[in-house]
């Protein structure tokens, strides 16, 4: 997959193009400015075992080696869905790219970049993701298992990432820990 779109005539990110994003791969992105140094943010993300703290639908991520990790996501009725993710590119303090291995039920890949923001505002963190929308009945069931709306999940996860990095905690409106547990967090 190409991350940059060289046929565009403007400076807008290719994921915001009005046309041409209707191929086999669904691509989407989310940018957020986080008031922290890019190295700190990169290091948090690069240790994938940190990510379930900000990703609501991920139960666990087991780091198998430097480049391979096993992800377990929430499924319906308390079930779990697993896949392996492989790091395909890694530039310290700047970029991490990954894709699912060939056995994944739904092919998915992504890239996160950490770029110092203008005007002392911290770091612009941009995630671009792509997945192969599953076909047929089985595919639809799997899509449900893997969150029907990956874009919604991404934007919420990015907000939680920002909250945790900027404030040291993730904002919640529950009244007590029991309610938090009820919500499965």
């Amino acid at each position, binding site marked *: 997959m190409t991350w940059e779109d060289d046929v565009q005539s403007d400076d807008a990110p290719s994921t915001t193009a009005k046309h041409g994003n209707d191929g086999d791969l669904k691509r989407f992105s989310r940018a957020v400015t986080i*008031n922290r140094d890019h190295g700190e943010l990169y290091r948090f993300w690069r240790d994938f075992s940190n990510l379930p703290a900000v990703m609501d639908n991920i139960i666990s991520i087991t780091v198998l080696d430097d480049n391979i990790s096993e992800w377990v996501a929430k499924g319906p009725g308390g079930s779990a869905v697993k896949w392996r993710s492989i790091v395909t590119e890694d530039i310290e303090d700047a970029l991490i790219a990954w894709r699912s291995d060939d056995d994944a039920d739904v092919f998915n890949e992504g890239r996160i970049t950490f770029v110092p923001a203008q005007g002392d505002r911290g770091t612009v963190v941009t995630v671009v993701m792509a997945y192969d929308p599953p076909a047929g009945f089985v595919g639809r069931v799997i899509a449900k298992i893997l969150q029907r709306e990956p874009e919604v999940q991404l*934007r919420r996860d990015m907000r939680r990432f920002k*909250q945790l990095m900027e*404030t040291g*905690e993730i*904002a*919640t409106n529950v009244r007590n820990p029991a309610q938090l547990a009820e919500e499965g967090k």
Partner: protein
Amino acid sequence: MRALAWHGKHDVRVDTVDDPEIVNPRDAIIKVTSTAICGSDLHLYDGYIPSMKAGDVLGHEFMGEVVDVGPGSNLQKGQRVVVPFTISCGSCFHCGKKQYSACDNGNPADNQDIAEKAYGHPMAGLFGYSHMTGGYSGGQAEYVRVPFSDVGPLVIPDGIDDDKVLFLSDILPTGWMAAENCDIEPGDTVAIWGCGPVGLFAIQSAFLLGAERVIAIDHFPKRLELAAKFGAEIVNFEESKTYEALMEMTGGIGPDAVIDAVGLEAHGFFADNVIDQIKVSTFMGTDRTHAIRQAIIACRKGGRVSMPAVYGGFVDKFPLGALMEKGLTLKTGQTHVQRYLKPLLAAIMEDKIDTTFLISHRMPLEKAPEGYKMFHDEQDQATKIVLKPEMFEARAG
């Protein structure tokens, strides 16, 4: 604990709900000693604010005693604090600019979706004010969980009565910011629509910030009387034509700055208002905006429009042409409460600002539903209702 919960339009009840506990490191638990019903609570009561759920605990003006703290709080048990209605993290870009009500992080991630869709960006979390602003349990309760307690709550020195400082939580800073947004210059006349609590505090604030004259507009005699007590000239819009009166009173110039302290429930039998009201009641979705329209039309050329009043959605017939052609500046926003706490506490302690005059009724938390009805139905006499959870405890004990 006991808490005032919203169940629907004109239906609020005191329910028994789960006690709050520390959840996040920077939390504190406050035992509420005083909590007020706000004019904007009436917007919830009247069902104008979307994203409410049955059982939501209301209340965003409160103070009390710290009874528990997380490891990241800088408060200590036993301290008395006033809590800002805005839940702000203190560490994001906006908090760094003291734009606390625009905090990026105070609103939980999932709740931010609603405002991002409606307004383009999510705003800070607020206590007890719908799920768009966080879905947080509010302060009309015995206890409240206060997130980011190292940023918001203001510690009150011993010996100062609750009634003097309670309004630091919302309406006093809101009235002050309304006047500050007028960029008052020497010799200025400021006209204020609405002599509710915010309008009355805006009058005092405008004089402190150097206004030469303040003209206050309302139709409730008691409220106009209070406005006059603070030195405002008053216009009763049921007895006088507001625009004509303002032009005569300012020698045809118009007020240099205008404040809309009314918001989306403007009263009065004006054609635009009646149409707005029909649209609201038939869910055609428009705010009732007579006050802001009239304020813009009356404002002098090159003047300033300050809008502390709460609006939620879209408006019809907004006089955009007048705003442009007359070169007006419009400033508005939810109050950046944390920015004003310390200077306003000092002003209270130096007796520069009077706050206690406002309180017309004090009652136990258990009587909150009656308080809502009274504040809603008897706006002339019920200027401000303060609920005291400990009055309930004393009665029960």
